[in-house]
């Protein structure tokens, strides 16, 4: 039997555990929060409403996704070790890296499922908003007395449809997903050397924040005109080299604002994420291989 089949069995089991325990509750809470929040915006004009709903949904998806990734991954290994299920599994013909990758893929599947459901809830809220707003606009079109008013009504109908069904929103969801998967891998790498759940959560959160500052650190490090002492330069160099640049995935704002984002950029950012993910997972395996259980 191939390693793939064993990894798949472990991943499936991890996903099953998540499903039987907590994930659906998170989705439920997300749905309620979004629905409640969407009504908060109803007093604004439709331009505002769509922007707010999009910012809000993507922001919450990103937040919940990152928190879930960190918390779920941080618990993986300690739970297996305390429950000694780790020993049972590793006494089977399973390599340590297979176990670790199975666990990661299981959590990744759970995160993908969660994000997909959150995206579906968001889309439903957007469509509901489109439905009610375009009903108003259509009424306006029916009542339009002159061509000018009709043009305005038609334009606002088109604008509503364009705002609600912007295909680039999928790219925004994709960027959130990529970021969440990368954060989960970083948490996994840290958990292989951690001695407690708290350690993993705290260190991963710090890395997450540092990941958004990495571009600044890199700029200061590589810019010879910047005044920084040798110690500071070394620190900045270490941060720049070790930590992925999470700012690369922060194009959500631009997408919501309808600004130009290119497919080429998205592809490059995905390739960058893939590189980071591969390296971080390899590092996790190397560290886990040498860990005393």
């Amino acid at each position, binding site marked *: *039997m191939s390693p793939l089949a064993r990894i798949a069995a472990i991943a499936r*089991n991890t996903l099953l555990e998540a499903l*039987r325990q907590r994930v659906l509750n998170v989705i439920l809470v997300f749905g309620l929060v979004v629905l409640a929040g969407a009504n908060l915006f109803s007093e604004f004009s439709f331009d505002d409403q769509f922007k707010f709903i999009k910012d809000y949904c993507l922001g919450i998806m990103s937040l919940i996704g990152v928190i879930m990734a960190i918390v779920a991954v941080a618990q993986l290994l300690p739970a297996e070790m305390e429950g*000694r299920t780790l020993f*049972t599994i*590793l006494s089977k*013909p399973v390599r340590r890296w297979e176990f670790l990758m199975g666990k990661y893929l299981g959590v990744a599947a759970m995160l993908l499922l969660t994000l997909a459901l959150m995206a579906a809830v968001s889309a439903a809220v957007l469509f509901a908003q489109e439905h009610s707003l375009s009903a108003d606009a259509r009424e306006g079109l029916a009542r339009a007395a002159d061509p000018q008013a009709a043009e305005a009504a038609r334009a606002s109908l088109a604008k509503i449809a364009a705002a609600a069904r912007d295909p680039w929103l999928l790219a925004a969801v994709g960027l959130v997903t990529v970021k969440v998967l990368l954060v989960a891998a970083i948490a996994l790498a840290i958990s292989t050397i951690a001695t407690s759940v708290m350690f993993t959560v705290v260190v991963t959160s710090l890395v997450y924040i540092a990941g958004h500052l990495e571009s600044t650190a890199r700029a200061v490090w590589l810019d010879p005109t910047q005044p920084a002492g040798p110690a500071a330069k070394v620190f900045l160099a270490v941060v720049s080299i070790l930590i992925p640049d999470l700012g690369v995935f922060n194009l959500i704002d631009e997408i919501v604002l309808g600004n130009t984002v290119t497919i080429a950029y998205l592809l490059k950012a995905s390739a960058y994420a893939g590189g980071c993910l591969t390296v971080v997972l390899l590092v996790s395996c190397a560290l886990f291989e040498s860990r005393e259980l």
Partner: protein
Amino acid sequence: MSSDHPIVLRGVAKHFPLHWRRGRVIAVEHLDLEVRRGEVFGLLGPNGSGKSTTLKMILGLTPPSSGEIELFGEPPARPETRRRLGFLPESPYFYRFLTGAETLRFFGRLCGVPRARLEARVEELIALVGLGHGRDRPLATYSKGMLQRIGLAQALVHDPELVLLDEPTAGVDPMGSRDIKDLILRLKSEGKTVVLSSHLLDQVEEVCDRVAILHLGRKIVEGPLGELLSPGDRATLEVEGYDERRADAIRAALASAGAGLRSVGRPRLTLEEIFVREVRRAGGDRP
């Protein structure tokens, strides 16, 4: 080379370094062991004597600090080698959210049991360990004895040649304990090799062919159970017409041989007695 023995340990030691250079903990020291094909081997000793660490090293879960371990003549870290053994961990905890059948299916997949065989195998094992009532219940609702049974079943899911059982009877009621012992004997009758560890020495007396007793990481006794428990220089006489007041006379009569001797039996020491004796001989607890 000695691949005829499923397990061979030569001069194995395991030290755990303490943090901040506070020295190290010696878990196992200079351990030689050979487990022979088809026998039931008992690895005995009180808690903290190094049994579990030894099993972990045999399973390749932790590398020895020094010495060599062979599992079917191979280093134990190889997953292919582990396909030939089954392991029941001490007080096993499995995924609480899985049912009994799901647990066995999961471990069956990990062990590479072919998909076509898996379902039949799961049913077989559930019947074997007597868990029909727990088949579709999540493990969270299992009693300790039921967990032990599902643990045994998962150790056997891929029909291994060698079965390692860490404290198989700990915390199990007498009936369950009886069943487990019967199962061990059945495995032996099927030609499998069984290694079990226990700190309750007398619980395993009736199933083990050979035992090794560990104390503070050192092996203090090893040998066939029969020889250990029945020293050759003693006998028990069952006397007819025994009278307390004439005990001396009987003794005298026995000395001159004759008076109504019905049977001569072998006295049984308990493993506990042997353990205490050997610890004393070794000079008591090391500092």
